[in-house]
């Protein structure tokens, strides 16, 4: 009996050693395909955002009786702790709010503003543009608006205080969480900037090196800052000791921000931009957010084209979409800027007549030779490799909705962290045009043009889809593709979000390549090449095209479906 026992033990040990490598191999396999479309489901209320801890923060607030605005701000603050490289109190954004009881849609603009001393040639030295000053320099930092915007929304439409909605963000920052592959890869990509602007001791580095997946990221300095704001209110950030630290950090890096710039910052509540697509109504943000305007333009263009006949991801669909984008980029450079300072012909640009005029310019099976807007164009736009920003959506039990996009611009923003505060300052001054004559040139207290486009789509008078995305100038292209995937091509919400994306633009009237995720079938790309498109292949699921989040509201109280982009760490939750 004892002998049998010994043999069994020896065999078990041997088996364990033999199986060790296989076990390790098995553990290293991805448990599931994160790109497989998956709609989150809820019956009453839902939050979708770019990090599970942020979703948890929002859902907790909803369960405790907070409304969509309370939950949205809790989620936004939690993202500052859990996804700090994309947004936070050092940045700004926009939110579209739907108040169910009043059936009212409103927009809160908490976009950053340029410091008062800004002027059109501020990024030029001896007549030469200094690209680095726009991105990794004190001059790159615009006056942050996020905290003022969150506070405004809470005070006017919420039911809870900043302190109450910050609790979960503080907990996340204090206790930490395991770093995801997304966090780690972005941390590595931006390592040089963090080293240069914040040094090897940066709280965004792990003993001077980027965080590896699975490392625990804690940010006690951010927890302290959020706790201070919870107790003393936004004044400590805009007028008090945090303001002093911001100004000191910015000026040490060559910037021009002052205490007066911070203390004078005010968010704006504005009328939303409204239009229609067939029997759908779209409500989104007006300039200085350009994403909403361009989504409306694109949808108006496609209202007149036989999309269903062409088919999903067909060469004709991609060709017309691409050419339309290139013409819109010409308009963008010609007309768009901060409406407080320049006249933006919004009504004309979103008119159905103007959409038809764009279609007339598109040649059916040939790339245009130039893309001009009224024969004028500006040297503009650096729609390059920048990946950034974050989006969240909330629907509460009463049917109130928030669609909120916020950012610190590039991942890890300017890389500047005011001493001991744990938050990153934006580099949104890079969203101003490089051309001093552009309507979007830098200027005193101006909002830089944004590509954000948080939106709510209505069908037959009822909210149908809440949607938004990060992704720089790819935002409006990606969001329009998602909307058309759902409405025209019959895809489910997350299926529409995960679907292959493409993007192009024009600079100085000339076409740039057609950037595509490599999942688009090769014969389609061959056809597009024959029509004159230069194809640039991107990764299979490339965060260059954004990280969209959305909530589909089923009719007659049939529940909610959430879609969250696997190009980042998007997820959803509700009850």
């Amino acid at each position, binding site marked *: 009996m004892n002998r049998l026992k010994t*043999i069994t033990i*020896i*065999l078990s*040990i*041997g088996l364990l*050693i*033999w199986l*060790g*490598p296989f076990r390790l191999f098995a553990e*290293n396999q991805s448990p599931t395909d994160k790109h497989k479309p998956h709609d989150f489901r809820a019956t009453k209320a839902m939050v979708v955002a770019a990090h599970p801890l942020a979703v948890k923060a929002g859902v907790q607030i909803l369960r405790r009786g907070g409304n969509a605005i309370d939950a949205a701000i809790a989620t936004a603050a939690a993202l500052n702790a859990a996804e700090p490289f994309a947004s936070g109190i050092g940045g700004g954004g926009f939110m579209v709010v739907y108040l169910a009881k009043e059936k009212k849609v409103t927009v809160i603009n908490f976009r950053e503003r340029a410091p008062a001393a800004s002027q059109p040639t501020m990024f030029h030295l001896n007549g030469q543009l200094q690209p680095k000053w726009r991105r990794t320099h004190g001059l790159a930092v615009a006056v942050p608006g996020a905290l003022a915007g969150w506070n405004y929304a809470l005070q006017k439409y919420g039911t809870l205080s900043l302190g109450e909605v910050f609790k979960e963000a503080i907990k996340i920052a204090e206790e930490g969480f395991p770093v995801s*592959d997304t966090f*780690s*890869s972005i941390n*590595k*990509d*931006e*390592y*040089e900037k963090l*080293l240069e602007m914040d040094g*090897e001791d940066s709280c965004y580095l*792990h*003993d*001077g*090196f*980027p965080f*590896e*997946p699975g490392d625990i990221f804690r940010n006690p300095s951010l927890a302290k800052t959020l706790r201070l704001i919870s107790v003393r209110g936004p004044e400590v950030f805009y007028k008090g000791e945090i303001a002093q630290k911001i100004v000191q950090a910015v000026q040490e890096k060559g910037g021009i921000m002052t205490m007066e710039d911070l203390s004078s910052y005010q968010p704006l509540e504005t009328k939303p931009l409204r239009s229609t697509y067939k029997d759908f109504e779209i409500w989104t943000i007006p300039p200085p957010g350009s994403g909403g305007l361009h989504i409306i333009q694109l949808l108006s263009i496609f209202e007149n084209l036989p999309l269903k006949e062409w088919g999903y991801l067909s060469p004709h669909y991609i060709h017309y979409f691409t050419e339309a984008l290139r013409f819109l980029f010409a308009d963008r450079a010609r007309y768009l800027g901060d409406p407080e300072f320049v006249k933006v012909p919004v009504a004309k640009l979103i008119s159905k007549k103007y959409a038809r005029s764009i279609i007339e310019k598109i040649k059916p099976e040939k790339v245009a030779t130039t893309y001009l807007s009224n024969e004028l164009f500006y040297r503009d736009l650096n729609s*390059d*490799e920048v*990946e950034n920003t974050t989006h969240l959506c909330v629907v509460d039990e009463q049917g109130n909705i928030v669609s909120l996009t916020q950012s610190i611009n590039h991942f890890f923003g300017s890389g500047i962290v005011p001493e001991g505060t744990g938050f990153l300052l934006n580099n949104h001054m890079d969203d101003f045009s490089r051309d001093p004559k552009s309507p979007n040139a830098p200027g005193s207290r101006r909002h830089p043009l944004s590509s954000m486009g948080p939106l709510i789509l209505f069908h037959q008078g009822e909210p149908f889809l809440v949607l938004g995305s990060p992704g720089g100038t790819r935002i409006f292209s990606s969001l329009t593709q998602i909307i058309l995937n759902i409405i025209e091509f019959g895809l489910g919400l997350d299926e529409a979000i995960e679907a292959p994306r493409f993007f192009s633009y024009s600079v100085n009237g000339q076409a740039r390549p057609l950037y595509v995720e*490599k999942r688009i079938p090769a014969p389609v790309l061959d056809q597009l090449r024959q029509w004159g498109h230069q194809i640039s292949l*991107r*990764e299979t699921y490339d965060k*260059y095209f954004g990280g969209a989040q959305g909530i589909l509201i089923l009719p007659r109280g049939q529940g909610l479906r959430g879609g969250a982009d696997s190009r980042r760490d998007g997820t959803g939750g509700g009850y």
Partner: protein
Amino acid sequence: MKHQNVKNSTNGLLSLLINIFFCSSLFWALSPWLHSQEALPHFSSPAIITSAGQSAEVQLAAVIAKRAGLEATLIKMATPADLKGTKTLILVLGASLKGLGAAGLDMNQEIDRVKSLLQACQEKKIPIICLHLGGESRRGELSDKIINLFLPQANLALAVRSGNQDDLFTTICQKNNIPLILLERASEGVTYFKEIFQLK
């Protein structure tokens, strides 16, 4: 009695099988450790650190070198002209569309640059250390192209283990007889740099 003999011989055979099984299990389990104890080649400074693919990990290599006390210069787009006086080339593998875009290069231009650099190293007999520090997230079609092209020319390779889950580095290094050090995290490179460059 006969029954007893059969039983004894069966037990003996079983014991032998168990012993073989156990010994080979031990060998299997310890083989990575034994492998890591092999003497590593030594290299001389000054070194040049450059990128193949313009990923951000080139900066990681520079910090590793600095912390190890290695005399090294970071030249992201080094050319054969930069090799003067160089004793070792540290080539950081990994393609980044973002990095290539910022450098104003496409993949073909980058590959041509690195090919000419390695050709010059071969002519000048400058040894090459290949690093892959981005782990799993720095794998993919473009990065793999770079790895397959340039890793076979290395005299030593260091790679973060999560980037070797499919044994790409192991396979290429075994095939080309290149010593391979697998790191749990990039920062471990400091210790190995001290060892291979014989720094205190």
